């Protein structure tokens, strides 16, 4: 079985941008068909959808969580597979509830642009995934038995798909990288689908480090089939990082030898570990 966590970048500013060719309603319809296709693949396939809204992240739908009584409310339709209908109705309703409408009151009261909480959504997706994993691990530790390395973890094959429209938020660099490493540890593949907007360096790295794909749009196979059918590869991965002082993305910089903080220009005292750097004056500019 295969588990898919879908992370939707729901930045209203980007979606309500009239210059974009893709309307949000069209986009949502495509996403719904994609999710149906995922569920159609296998009876056991499961799904969790997280929305990254400006400043907050919300779990929109989870097929594992059957506690929600709302599922049964949906009128059955003889022409549609029931799980599809349940999913579509629930997701559409949740997004409508949570999606902030663009303020059309007056131009002066335009709200400040808030980056979407992608890291929060990613962290939540990983937490959900780990809840089974943690349980398993703890039992292993509790009984102090060493599992042979090839023991199949009782984990469904899982991947995360990030549908992104907004650019990198440099402030979230460290938490994002930490999330990526934990995804690596959990053997979760992160795929990134960039609908439009500039390429995001961080998400490219996320896809590269976890063995996923960074693409524009494609129906991707489950990770186990990827060794047999090739997937679109990323042509260029940017390994640049954000500097700590201005949160700019740089390709060469100065690194504190004590704490690995990255600076875009020589600083006399490291802002992270307060270490005095004595030889800064000798440095050549890069």
């Amino acid at each position: 079985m295969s588990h898919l966590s879908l992370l939707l970048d729901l930045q209203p500013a980007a979606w309500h941008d009239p210059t974009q060719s893709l309307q949000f309603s069209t986009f949502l319809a495509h996403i719904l068909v994609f999710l149906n296709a995922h569920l159609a693949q296998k009876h056991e396939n499961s799904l969790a959808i997280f929305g990254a809204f400006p400043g907050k992240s919300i779990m929109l739908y989870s097929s594992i969580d059957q506690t929600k009584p709302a599922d049964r409310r949906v009128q059955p339709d003889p022409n549609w597979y029931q799980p599809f209908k349940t999913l579509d109705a629930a997701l559409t309703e949740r997004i409508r509830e949570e999606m902030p409408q663009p303020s059309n009151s007056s131009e002066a009261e335009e709200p400040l642009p808030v980056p979407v909480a992608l890291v929060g959504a990613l962290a939540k997706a990983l937490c959900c995934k780990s809840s089974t994993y943690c349980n398993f691990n703890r039992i292993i530790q509790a009984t102090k038995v060493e599992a042979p390395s090839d023991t199949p973890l009782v984990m469904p094959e899982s991947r995360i798909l990030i549908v992104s429209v907004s650019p990198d938020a440099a402030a979230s660099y460290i938490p994002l990288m930490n999330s990526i490493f934990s995804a690596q540890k959990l053997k979760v593949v992160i795929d990134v689908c960039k609908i439009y907007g500039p390429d995001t360096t961080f998400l490219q790295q996320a896809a590269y480090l976890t063995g996923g794909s960074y693409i524009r749009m494609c129906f991707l196979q489950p990770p186990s089939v990827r060794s047999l059918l090739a997937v679109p590869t990323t042509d260029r991965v940017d390994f640049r990082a954000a500097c700590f002082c201005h949160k700019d993305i740089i390709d060469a910089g100065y690194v504190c030898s004590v704490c690995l903080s990255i600076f875009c220009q020589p600083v006399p005292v490291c802002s992270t570990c307060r270490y005095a750097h004595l030889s800064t004056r000798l440095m050549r500019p890069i």
Partner: protein
Amino acid sequence: MPKDPETAGQQDAPHTLIPFLQSQSQTALTRLYTRPSSCLAIFRLLGPIERQIVMSLLWLEGPIASQTLNAWVTKEGRKPYGTALDTLSKIQILPNPGTRMLLNPNFKASFRMALTGGGDLNSFGVPYVSSKEKDAERDGAGDKKFGPNLEHLDSYALERWETILHYMVSSGTDSTPQRPSAGVLYLLQRSGLMQPLPSPSGYSTASSRKTSQLQISSLGFQFLLHTPHEQLWELLLQYLKMVEERQMDLVEVLNFLFMLSTMDLGREYSPDNLTQTQLVMLEDLRDYGLIWQRKSSSKRFSPTRLATTLTSSTPLLPSSGGGNTGPQGFIILETNYRLYAYTDNPLQIAVLNLFVHLKSRYPNLVVGSITRDSVRKALNNGIRADQIISYLVTHAHPQMRRNNPLLPVTVQDQIRLWELEKNRLKSADGYLYTNFAAQADYQVVLDYAKQIGVVLWENSVKRCFFASAEGHSNIRGFIERRSKDEQM
């Protein structure tokens, strides 16, 4: 090590239904593909690569060159990819994959409809809603809003299914469990899983055969060791094969099965839209435990979990054994051939009893040991050593899963050796040639027999040899010719 049955499934044989579908005519398949629910169910039965190919092509309007898709295949993937294309073309989903890739238009339209919803084919079952409101008032509290509850459905399906299996497993013994219905018995007999017990007075007459006791065949023993999911499909496949004789329309039968598999568990459906054939099936499937009805004349029906998980690869049957063993295994096997089975399910115990010498029984535990005699008994019943081993592997307790290899090697090897032991004697039909008058005669005939390669055994001191039956006429002719020559 593959983590997932799906990963391993690439090398495994395709689903049992696929070869059956491949043998069907093109028109039948095309008719089948007009219903979205059938498309969805068949899609799920396909292997992962096939599914990916279908998905890649589904939203394309025109055909694409096969080279385009070939470019995606890695070196290791060539062979599985080839077989996948082959399968798809045989079941007419992707006709002519050699040149231009284009999905069967019917399949494409229906499957798209399945994903996006719409249409008016009612292929996912008409729910019993129209009269629900008034019905609820009439029946009062007894009728819940959403039909029978899940526990009830599960226990019903489990009871039906285990009745069948239990009947099979205990047929040879004295105990007489509940008999399944006549339809089920007929199916079991037709499929060769059970055979009529030869009555003491020679061959039974046609009339007595119907009532006579059935006995499990060696095929049946093998059947018992399969996973429930395989068992279910095996029976359904037999059912499908019988369809032609019963003058039923195969496409309608398949459509109904697939419709059941896409229905919602715990919901009631109306049989109003069903064809005559499907109404007949309704009754049959009720006997197998796939469908639940309050009364046989009831105006609504609910699929059970057996039906709704038809297209899932891992059996999500109602956990057999009352839920305490769960879907995971329950068997612990030690290197000293002792076996502990944490179960109180009479069916599981009966199955174990096929090849294990059971020693003691506790409320939740059965202890036994695998002995030469117990395994030989099973082998004599037609069960193969590999089947025993695979049964032990699939039902191994989670504690056992930490071992590598899963089962103790000694036990595995010993079971195989016991099987080989049975094969020490090989029987071959043939003739013994003896009483040759002279050594020269013997030598000439033997040389001739060796020339045509039929000698199985020879002893020159006793002047006799044994040759296979097919060489007999030649050798006889040779001897006769020789003796004629000598007489002349």
